[in-house]
C-alpha cells in the first residue's frame, strides 16, 4: 500500500489537530501557573495572578463566571472550574472527547493514558491549589501531557493523521510561547532602580523556566544578558523546542510533506501563511521590536497563528468555521 492510498476523514484530521491543541494548552497552563507562583512577591499577588487572565484574554469570561480578581479565584478559574472553557479540566474534557472520536486511529496506550489522566484532573480539589500542593499539581499536569506526548511519539502511526496532530501542537505551542512572553507586559516592577533590576531578572528567569528554556538559555547566552537576548531566545532560537520560530518552521515543513508525499495541494494556502509568519518572526531586529512595543508585536504574531490554523481548517477540515478560531470540533459534535 502506498501512502497515497491511506484514507483520512476530514473530521478525524480536525479532531487530531484539536486534541493536540487542547493537551498542549493544559501543559502550558500548568507552566504559566507555576511561573506565576514564582512571580508572586508580597504585595503584588493579585496583579501577578490577574496577569494570567489578561494574557489569555479571559477577562470577560472570568467576570461572567462570578470570579473576582484575586490569586485564589484565578487558580480556581483555571484549575477547578469545569464550566470555564479555558480551564485545565475543560481542556482535558475536550481533549478526551476528541480522543473518543479518534480512537479508531489511536493506539490503545494513548487512549488509556488520556483516560487515566482525565480521571485524575476531574478529581482536582481546592486543597490541591493551596501552598506547596500547587507546585506538585502543576508538576503532575505537566507529567500527564508529557506522558501523552511521549506515548504518541512512540506509538502513533505516522500517516497524514500524525501530521495534523503535530500541526495542532505546533500552532498551539507557538501561540503559548508568545503569551508567556506577554507576561512581561502585564507584570508590574518596583520603581527603585536596583530592586527593579533584580526583579526584572527574576521575571525573565521565570519565563525561561516556564518555556523550558532556562538551562539552554544559560548555555547559549552571554554572562550578562539583556531582555533582548531572552526575547530572541523565545521567539527565534532555532533549537529551543518551544521557540515560536522552531514551531513555525516545523509546521511549514509538515505542510510541505503533506503536499509532496500525500499530494495534498490544498496545503499551499496554509504554507503561504506559515511562510509569512516565519518572515515576521525573523525580519526585524529584536531591539526594534522592543522599541516599537513587544505586546503589539506579539499580538500580530498571535493573529497570524490563528490565520494559519484557519488556512489549515479551510484546506482540510469538514466543518471549519473561520469566524470562530477557538471553537474545536467538540462543539460541532455536541449538536449531533
Amino acid at each position, binding site marked *: 500500500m502506498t501512502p497515497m492510498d491511506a*484514507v*483520512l*476523514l*476530514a*473530521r*478525524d*484530521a480536525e479532531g487530531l489537530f484539536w486534541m493536540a491543541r487542547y493537551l498542549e494548552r493544559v501543559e502550558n497552563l500548568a507552566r504559566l501557573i507555576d511561573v506565576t507562583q514564582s512571580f508572586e512577591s508580597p504585595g503584588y499577588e493579585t496583579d501577578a495572578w490577574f496577569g494570567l487572565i489578561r494574557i489569555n484574554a479571559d477577562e470577560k469570561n472570568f467576570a461572567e463566571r462570578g470570579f473576582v480578581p484575586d490569586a485564589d479565584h484565578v487558580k480556581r478559574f483555571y484549575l477547578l472550574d469545569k464550566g470555564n472553557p479555558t480551564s485545565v479540566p475543560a481542556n482535558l474534557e475536550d481533549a478526551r*472527547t476528541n480522543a*473518543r*472520536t479518534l*480512537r*479508531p486511529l489511536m493506539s*490503545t496506550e494513548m*487512549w*488509556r493514558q488520556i*483516560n*487515566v489522566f482525565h*480521571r485524575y484532573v476531574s478529581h482536582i480539589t481546592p486543597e490541591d491549589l493551596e501552598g506547596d500542593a500547587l507546585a506538585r499539581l502543576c508538576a503532575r499536569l505537566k507529567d500527564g501531557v508529557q506522558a501523552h506526548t511521549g506515548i504518541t511519539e512512540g506509538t502513533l502511526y505516522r500517516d*497524514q493523521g500524525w501530521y*495534523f496532530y503535530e500541526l495542532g501542537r505546533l500552532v498551539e505551542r507557538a501561540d503559548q510561547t508568545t503569551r508567556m512572553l506577554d507576561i512581561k507586559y502585564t507584570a508590574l516592577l518596583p520603581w527603585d532602580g536596583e530592586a527593579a533590576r533584580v526583579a526584572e531578572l527574576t521575571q525573565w528567569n521565570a519565563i525561561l523556566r516556564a518555556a523550558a528554556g532556562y538551562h539552554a538559555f544559560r548555555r547559549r547566552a552571554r554572562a550578562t544578558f539583556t531582555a533582548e537576548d531572552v526575547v530572541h531566545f523565545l521567539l527565534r532560537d532555532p533549537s529551543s523546542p518551544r521557540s515560536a520560530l522552531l514551531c513555525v518552521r516545523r509546521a511549514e515543513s509538515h505542510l510541505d510533506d503533506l503536499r509532496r508525499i*500525500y*499530494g*495534498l495541494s*490544498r496545503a499551499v494556502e496554509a504554507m503561504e501563511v506559515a511562510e509569512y509568519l516565519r518572515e515576521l518572526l525573523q525580519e526585524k531586529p529584536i531591539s526594534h521590536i522592543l522599541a516599537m512595543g513587544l505586546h503589539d508585536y506579539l499580538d500580530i504574531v498571535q493573529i497570524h497563528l490563528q490565520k494559519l490554523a484557519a488556512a489549515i481548517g479551510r484546506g*482540510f*477540515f*469538514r*466543518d471549519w468555521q473561520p469566524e470562530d478560531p477557538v471553537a474545536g470540533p467538540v462543539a460541532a*459534535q455536541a449538536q*449531533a
Partner: protein
Amino acid sequence: MNEIFRSTWPDYDPGRYFCELTRNRADAGPVPGWLVERLGRIGMAELRARAAAAETELIDLGVTFTVYSDATAIDRILPFDCIPRVLTAREWDLLERACIQRVRALNLFLGDIYGPGHILRDGVIPAELVHGNANYRPEMKDFPVPHGTYVHVCGIDIIRDEFGDFRVLEDNARTPSGVSYVIENRHLMLRSFPDLMAGIRLRPVDDYGRRLRAAMTDIAPGGAHDPQVVLLSPGIYNSAYFEHVFLAREMGVPLVVGSDLLVENERVYMRTINGLRPVHTVYRRLNDDFLDPAVFRPESQLGVPGLIGAWRAGNVAIANAVGTGVADDKAVYAYMPRIIKYYLGEDALIQNVETHICREREGLQYTLDNLHRLVTKPVGESGGYGITIGPRASKEELEASRATILAEPGNWISQPMIGLSVAPTLAQEGIGPRHLDLRPFIVTGRDSWVLPGGLTRVAMKRGSLIVNSSQGGGSKDTWVLADDFQPGPTP
C-alpha cells in the same frame, strides 16, 4: 454434583437450576473439573484481588457503555465476572449448527416476504403479522440483495432450561451488539488469569474482525476492486460507541458518522482531507429509521440523505439490510420453528421457548389467565425494558400489566417462566449461582460463520433473571473447548 466442586466450594448451591460447572452432562463430554481445581488453587482472596484489578483495567481502557436515564448519561463498564463459562466441543457443535440453521431460515424468510411471499400465501404465518409489522419496510419489496443475505450479523440469545437443554430466547437481526466484549473479555482473561488457562486448548475469538470485513467485501457491489468498507456509527454519544470503535479497528476500516458521508448521483462518498472518496459497503450500527432522512425519519441528523437511493441503484451495500427487524420481532419469533421447517425441511436444532401470542385470541386468553405464572414482553422493545415476570410481580404490578396488555394485545407475547441456568459467579457472599444466557454471533456474507462462544451475559444480582447490560447485567468470558479432554496438572 461434581465432587471436586463440592470440596472446593461446599456452600455453592445451584438449587433447582441447571449449572454447567457442577451438573454432569452425559451427552456433553466430561465436565471440566480441572477448572474448579485451578480456581480452588488460586483461592478466594487472590480471585477477588485479580477481579478488582481486571475491572480497573476496563475503566482505564475505557471499555464502557453509556446508560441513559432521564437527563443523565453515565459511562459504565460491563461488570466482568472472572469465572469463565465453559462449553464443551460437543455442545458447541450443536450450537454452531443451530445458529447457522436459524440464520439461513431468517434470510430465506426475508427474501420471501420481500419477494414472492410464498410463506404468506401458504398460510404458515399470518400476512398481517408481516405487513402490519412496524419493522416491515415496503421500500425493500422486490429488491434483491447479494447472496440473498439480509442478516449479515446476527446475535441469537440462547438460554438453558432446568434440564440443561438449550433454547432460543430471541433473535437479534438488526444491529446486535456485544461482540466486542467477547474479544475484550478474552484478552482480559489472558492477562489476568494465565494460570487458569494454561494448557487448555480453546477455540480462538480474535478472528471476528477479519471475518466481518470479508463478509462486507463479499456483498460490495460488483466491479469494485478492493471495495471501500466503512462502519457507520451514530457517534460518541451512542451507548455502543466503544464497540463501533472496536469493530472499525478490528476490520481496519474508517469509522464514519452520517455527516462524513454524502450521496451524489446515487453514489456514496466520504469526506476526506483530499476530497470525496467512494464508499462501497456500509456496515451500519444505526437503526433503519435513522439511515436516510429522505426516506425515513426526516428529522434524523445521524443518517445520510440519499443513502437508500444509492442502495436501490445498486451502488452501495448496506449491512444489515434494511427491514430485517420484521424477522427478529418477538411476535414472528413464535413462528420460527415453522419457518425453519418450511424453508429447510428440517426441525429446529434448538427449540424456541414456548410462546403465546396475544394478538391471537387463544394466546391472549391463556396469557391473561396465567399472568402470575408467565413472563410478559412487549414485542417492539429490546434491552429487557417493559418485561413483567409474573411469579415475582406484586398483585398491583400484575393488574397494571393486564391493563397494558388489554389496551394493545398485538403488542405483547408471553412465555412460561424458564428456570434459566446458573453458573458459579464471584459475588459478595462468595461463589454464588447467578443466572446467565448466551449470545453467539453469526457473520454471513456469501456463507455463514459463527464466532466460537459468544457473549455470556450474567445477572449479577442474586436471583435476578435479567441479564441485560442496561439493567445491571455483567459478562463472563465464554470458553469453547477445542476438544474434550482432561489436561494434566497446571505447570
